[in-house]
């Protein structure tokens, strides 16, 4: 149902770095699970409307009002890495662009 190459592709889409062991295990397990899903094809659903949520509700909106947030420092401090520069406060991540132009 699903081969190892597809498992690698899905892992990339999900941003998961899998070990060879995990790749192998997931290939078997996902195949079993997808096969289990096959029973749904017994049901004719051509004329059936999909249900996205169980209890019907119209769209809920609110005015987009600016509100000051008091725990700004707490939020910045939750980050694994941060940096403050003259431009402001930032969440810091590893280099995004390659070394060209440096």
């Amino acid at each position, binding site marked *: 149902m699903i081969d190892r190459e597809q498992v690698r592709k899905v892992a990339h889409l999900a941003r998961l770095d899998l070990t060879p062991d995990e790749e192998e295990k997931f290939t078997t397990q996902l195949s079993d699970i997808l096969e*289990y899903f096959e029973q749904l094809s017994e049901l004719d659903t051509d004329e059936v409307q999909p249900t996205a*949520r169980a209890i019907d509700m119209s769209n809920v909106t609110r005015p987009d009002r600016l509100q000051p947030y008091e725990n700004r420092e707490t*939020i910045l401090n939750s980050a694994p890495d941060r940096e403050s520069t003259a431009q402001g406060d930032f969440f810091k991540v590893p280099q995004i662009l390659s070394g060209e132009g440096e």
Partner: protein
Amino acid sequence: MASIRELHHQLVKKECSAVELTQDYLKRVETLEPKLHSFLCVTADRALEQAKQVDAKLAAGEEVGPLAGIPIGIKDNLCTQGIPTTCASKILQNFVPPYESTVTAKLAAAGAVMVGKTNMDEFAMGSSTESSAFQLTANPWDVERVPGGSSGGSAAAVAAGECVVALGSDTGGSIRQPASFCGVVGMKPTYGLVSRYGLVAFASSLDQIGPFGRSVEDIAVLLETIAGHDPKDSTSLKVNIPNYASLLKPNLLKKQKLRIGIIKETFGEGLDPVVGQAVMAAVDELKKLGAKVKEISCPKFRYGLPTYYIIAPSEASANLARYDGVKYGFRTEEAESLMDMYTKTRAQGFGAEVKRRIMIGTYTLSAGYYDAYYLKAQKVRTLIKQDFERAFSEVDVLVCPTSPITAFKAGEKTNDPLSMYLTDLMTIPVNLAGLPALSLPCGFDDQGLPIGLQMIGNVLQEDVLLQAAYAYEQATDWHERQPEIGE
């Protein structure tokens, strides 16, 4: 073990103080935790502080509500400001929320005393609490066995008397199944009845917060405190919340001519015969109490499991995309580039079950497969919902076993995800239809393990459901049995 009503009486009559009560429970937690491991973190300081405030109110002659001073456990996927909220995942191990969930804020306002944060399956994905990244929780009835899941810590803590009541969350049975395994009462309310603001999202079209307790009255008190509209949750319903506990009166079933339907399809293959017998005996008891009982067919019920295991992982794969190591939580130390940081953070931060579900969900949502899986599942969801609609045109409450089996041994199903998923067979269709349902004790198997009766109500019929459960509970004494570990 005392009920909310009894403890409230003691507090108001000044037979004990809230601080004393809290100390008693904290001591119990300290004694039992080495065996049970229900809590990921015990919040003794916050608990004593909250208890002091209740005592101050009582001393000043102020009126306090029924939950004031009552020790409560909170599942660790509910955000508590300043207190770690980990979802039992390594990826959130160091996460301390900057804000408070609506339900815990409401409980604090009601004077409830939070004893600690309870263990769970990682991100609520599992049926045994074994996927917790940190510890295994034992079933108080047999410590070799699992407490069920995903809210296993809450269920075990209540069963063993480490707290009086607890909160859990239920996406496919995560309150009802552990309630059944641990011999306590657990309820999943109607989708949207309780605000999910501050609940870490798993599958947004299914997740709902609900109460655990040792009696129907206790969960009714807890439910009326946490339910109600919240502008911070756009799926929250604008409805009036009845005073559920005050509606629990004797001899109701006869007066109401309550109509009960037994879901025929749940008594088939895979059902432990002892569980089936206990549930049928409970049905006889309900008949004696005045309910009219008939068999109901829900032919699409059995498609609930595959439908759920497409919808829930699909939504989870989107919800868990936020754990990227940028703004909070765990970050790998081995990253050389941004992409590297994402993939390694997630690889090291998530456990096997969470990865498996992210993989399933990413696959079922990916180009070329969406119609075959996700859309198909949403259509089958409609069919399952229609089954329930037909059923509720004939009866008021549906009954069936909560779980086809009683608590299994730790490690027994960890290598076979499908067999683990099968334990949620009977709870899952309820989430797909957004209905309220509860599990309450209805017997014990030959090994002394609790059996749960599931009662399902129509949309927003929590009152009817609680009344039916109360009538059964008053007529039986299953809920009075306690595990030896708590003695």
